[in-house]
């Protein structure tokens, strides 16, 4: 029972990180129909940028802020300069993001070297909570809480603000949205930048535990894609449910049948694809 609860909490921690990454991926997909292979690279760059800033300033908060802003800006530039001109050409866009994924991977290797590292834990969040016999690290609980707040924030922006309304309009019918005065191109750039920033934030949040290492960019990317496929491409609610499903299954899979981890994700994906090809909350 204790084992079960601990593993569930661990699974929820993975789900929280996955949600931070997959929510950006699914938003970008919803607005632009881009299969963004470089999304994992933004996640990786976030950790590396944060590590540099933290080493200089000794401030975790500044590190996180810098990571989100720098990577978000990089995403914005990539979208405006290289992806916008291929709007409605999903293959060209996918190849473009693949090219950038390779560029970013090599640039990170040149700039930061190949040694794995972890970010420091925040001072206040060290140690564990004990409830009865269950011991659980505070930092992991904190990440779950942060992800929940980010999810709530995204939902509020999407449902309750003018920007969100314009965003939903652009998802439903880009031409009509443009006709009623929404600058869809600028909005797409901003969404892409925000998605990149979210991925970077996910990298920083996972930084004290997962750290940074060469190859991490493609490590979580497939999981994020599975989340988006299960939840429905373009749906925030789907990303939330998908993250929890994938986080839990991946965690229990790794614990129970380590040699088949990854493969355990196959079953839910196949079931969802067979029953609802557009994912749980996706629209055709």
């Amino acid at each position, binding site marked *: 029972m204790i084992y079960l609860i601990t593993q569930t909490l661990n699974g929820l921690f993975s789900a929280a990180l996955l949600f931070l990454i997959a929510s950006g991926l699914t938003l970008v*997909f919803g607005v632009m129909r881009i299969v963004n292979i470089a999304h994992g690279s933004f996640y990786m760059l976030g950790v590396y940028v944060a590590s540099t800033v933290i080493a200089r300033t000794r401030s975790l908060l500044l590190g996180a802020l810098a990571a989100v802003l720098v990577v978000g800006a990089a995403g914005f530039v990539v979208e405006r300069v290289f992806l916008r001109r291929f709007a409605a050409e999903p293959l060209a866009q996918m*190849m473009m993001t693949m090219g950038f994924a390779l560029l970013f991977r090599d640039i990170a290797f040149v700039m930061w070297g190949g040694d794995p590292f972890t970010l420091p834990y925040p001072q206040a969040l060290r140690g564990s909570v004990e409830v009865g016999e269950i011991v659980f690290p505070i930092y992991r609980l904190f990440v779950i809480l942060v992800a929940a707040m980010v999810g709530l924030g995204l939902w509020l922006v999407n449902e309750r603000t003018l920007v969100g309304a314009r965003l939903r309009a652009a998802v439903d019918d880009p031409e009509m949205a443009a006709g009623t005065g929404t600058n869809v191109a600028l909005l797409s750039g901003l969404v892409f930048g925000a998605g990149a920033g979210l991925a970077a934030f996910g990298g920083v949040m996972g930084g004290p535990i997962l750290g940074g290492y060469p190859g991490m960019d493609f490590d979580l990317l497939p999981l994020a894609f599975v989340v988006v496929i299960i939840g429905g491409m373009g749906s925030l609610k789907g990303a939330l449910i998908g993250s929890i499903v994938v986080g839990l299954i991946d965690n229990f899979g790794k614990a129970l049948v380590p040699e088949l981890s990854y493969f355990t994700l196959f079953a839910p994906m196949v079931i969802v694809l067979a029953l609802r090809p557009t994912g749980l909350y996706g629209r055709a």
Partner: protein
Amino acid sequence: MAGRNGTHRSVRSPAWKRYLLILGLVILVAGPPFLSSYWVGLLTQVLIFAILAMSLDVLLGYTGLPSLGHVGFFGVSAYTVAILSTAHQAGFWTCVVGGIVAGTLLSAAFGLLVSHVRNVYFLMITLALGMVLWGLSYRWIPVTGGDNGISGVPRLEAHAGLPLSGPIPFYYVTLLVFGACGLLMALIVSSPFGYTLRGIRENESRMRSLGFNTWLHCYLSYVIAGAFASVSGVVWAYYNGFVSPTYLELTAASEVFLMVTLGGPGTLVGPVLGAGTIVLLKNVISAYTQRWLLILGAIYIITILGAPKGLWNLGRVSPRS
């Protein structure tokens, strides 16, 4: 979409293309005896990846289904050969048939999951399926050897009982397989079936209202592409003598994708050209610099900006312009 201007508008190809094609064939057939074994090895690699790239083109260029999990079948068939020949000491033909059957059966199973989805959704789902296979090869250590892979696949010449051995006989065996696969695929894409595939690529709902079972055509195209990819996987296992998860990675999957896009989707010559360019550049550039990934990334971006229809389609005028 890829390959909008397919070969069906077959005005006679310009003279330079015909000369280039003949020159290429002459080099492939008569060149190797005059080359060092290093270059013969590289040419063998080119041919193996050319088969793989052509098979992806049946799907991507002719049917309009962009698969990012295509190396999966290549990998599964290579792993099957490696496992059968090392752990089970199986004979040559068992390995060959086993590899092809394993890859093809897998594509028949995956095909059921993806044949009803299109466009970006197809891209994303095949990517996820491909990554599942990668995860399996990486973590199912008792069977696949994990990160270490499986080494000790016997030399093809010895395993098949050929009287000759060395890089040149292996090259010509590969050339034979390449020729047979290329010919078969050329027959398939220029058959009525192949034209139906092109019709689906251009306008699926019209093809459906004309009475074609478009699902079945997409499914068959997927399985055919998977079968040819499995053939290239078998040859690769023998060529390399070693299999590892490297060739199931996302980077490998998109490298094949790049070969097709760079060469020219919707033509069978294009993917061969693309495979040649990428394999040769990779080996030559890697000898001089560590920054191959940086250059490969740049090649992606330059290809999309400069030759979005691929090198082999460069001279061709698009119907809309």
